[in-house]
């Protein structure tokens, strides 16, 4: 289920503006990869190219190659809709559908896929996804109430449940805890540890401790100045990055000397 991602010479543009330049990296399956770096260096932008969400912004496009287990995501004839069904995404701000109940939210992606799943099968999938997101015990008695009635942390776990209900091969998370309180943050970090057994996980975070706590591999992005494209500076095991980084800028960033 879990797949390996390989990016080769990836340049990312917003119309004429080149936001990210020449990224080459390998993201291993069954592991957590963290993207860190100062604001505006292109972490979100790069993450969104991994499920072809970048191109929904008018004028935005990608140059280069991104392979999912050897299959080019940007190859001719590849439908971005299918890519997104395989590569799930959790956004910075929790975004459950306000017009849907908790259960409908979890099943939202599934309804797009096979509309024919029976009621009991749907209940099963919803329960499994909610358990997977550590939310089941809190919501099992109010599955038919609106998802917007949950707390921020619960909403974010609902979004994770919605993503994993699709059984994706990769799970992308863009600063999933930045809008949450410390306790909800811990709950999500624990969850990420459990999920990596099943999924390839990529997480963007501005919180160095979080990267150190949850990830196996860390990629440091940096930007030379405003208007310049962001670049991948260094990528290695999280232990290595946080103890003996090879690049000076990485060390400066993780020790809090800038950014």
């Amino acid at each position, binding site marked *: 289920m879990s797949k390996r991602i390989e990016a080769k010479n990836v340049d990312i543009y917003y119309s004429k503006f080149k936001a990210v330049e020449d990224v080459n990296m390998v993201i291993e399956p069954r592991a957590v990869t963290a993207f860190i770096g100062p604001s505006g260096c292109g972490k979100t932008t790069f993450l969104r190219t991994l499920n072809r969400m970048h191109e929904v912004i008018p004028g935005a496009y990608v140059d280069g190659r991104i392979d999912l287990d050897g299959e080019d995501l940007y190859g001719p004839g590849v439908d971005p809709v299918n890519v*997104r*069904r395989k590569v799930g995404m959790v956004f910075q701000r929790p975004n459950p559908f*306000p*017009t849907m109940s908790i259960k409908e939210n979890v099943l939202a992606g599934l309804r*797009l896929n096979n509309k024919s799943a029976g009621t009991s099968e749907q209940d099963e999938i919803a329960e499994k996804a909610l358990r997977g997101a550590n939310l089941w015990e809190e919501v099992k008695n109010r599955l038919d109430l609106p998802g917007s009635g949950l707390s921020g942390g619960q909403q974010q776990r609902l979004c994770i449940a919605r993503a994993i209900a*699709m059984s994706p091969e990769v799970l992308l998370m863009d600063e999933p805890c930045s809008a949450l309180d410390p306790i909800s943050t811990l709950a999500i970090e624990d969850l990420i540890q459990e999920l990596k057994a099943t999924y390839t996980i990529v997480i963007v975070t501005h919180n160095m401790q979080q990267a150190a706590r949850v990830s196996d591999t860390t990629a440091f992005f940096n930007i030379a100045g405003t208007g310049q494209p962001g670049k991948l500076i260094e990528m290695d095991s999280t232990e290595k990055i946080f103890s003996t980084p090879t690049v000076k800028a990485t060390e400066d960033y993780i020790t809090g000397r800038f950014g």
Partner: protein
Amino acid sequence: MNKQVQAPHERAAHSDLIPAKPRVGDKVFTGLSTGSGVAILVILAAVAAFLLLRALPALTASADDIAAGGYTSNLAWLDGFWGWVLPLAFGTIWAALGALALAVPVSIGIALFISHYAPRRLAQTLGYVIDLLAAVPSVVYGLWGFFVLAPALGGLHRWLTTYLGWFPLFSGQASGTGRTIFTASIVLAVMILPIITSLCREVFLQTPKLHEEASLALGATRWEMIRMAVFPFARAGIVSAIMLGLGRALGETMAVAMILSGQNRISFEVLTAQNPNTIAANIALSFPEAYDLKINQLIASGLVLFIITLAVNMFARWIVSRRAAFSGAN
């Protein structure tokens, strides 16, 4: 009083004890908004009272009085005032529903095209054109319906009655002039299209990016995204837009008066020469020659229109509020 003459340093020390003075701007605005609110209620009550008072003679008149000095019923099963006004109320609602049936799908389609499909330049141009349609006076629509549309639709009338005559709405003998409830509904549809379209476009554009992206990231196609994120978010707005359109169609006078040759009867057939009339058009056409009880009857029919419109609005509010918890407003 005392506090206001304290020395500056004392005032600073006690500043949090001095009650906040209401600002002039606040007072003016509060007065203005309360005043406007009250004024609307007073005007509404005055209109209702006028209608009720002047309608009363017609409402209380016996069938014989009406037969002697007023407009009489065409219905075999109901005489008096109600027998006369019922076909008018029917025609009003029938024409308006026909207009809605034609205008709503087209409006929502155009609004979606502008908000989610068209390139920005084209979307803007289309938006202007639609808004321009709203600026055309209804007399002009009436003239266009009478001179252009009705004659042009004569062939379609004959074709529909010939080949689709088995469908109850299209049965009967096709009108030779094209001045039917069908043509009137089309003109009404064109008239209410701009308001429904521009309101829908506004709400569609306000769909949070967050929810659109949520559905796209789940692998929704554009149409699935619209069904998942845009429509549910816009539901209340769409209902309001439809009701505004319906309100306009119900009350439209000139265009219908010019196009339709009404007969004060109840008939679901939309293509024949015998069409029901609408309340507003009937008032406009009959008022110049009406006197005594006839005037009361016309005003009473206006009261009926008033009540229909009110009921439509309350129904719309009920629809909007039914699933308020799921509206995303919280």
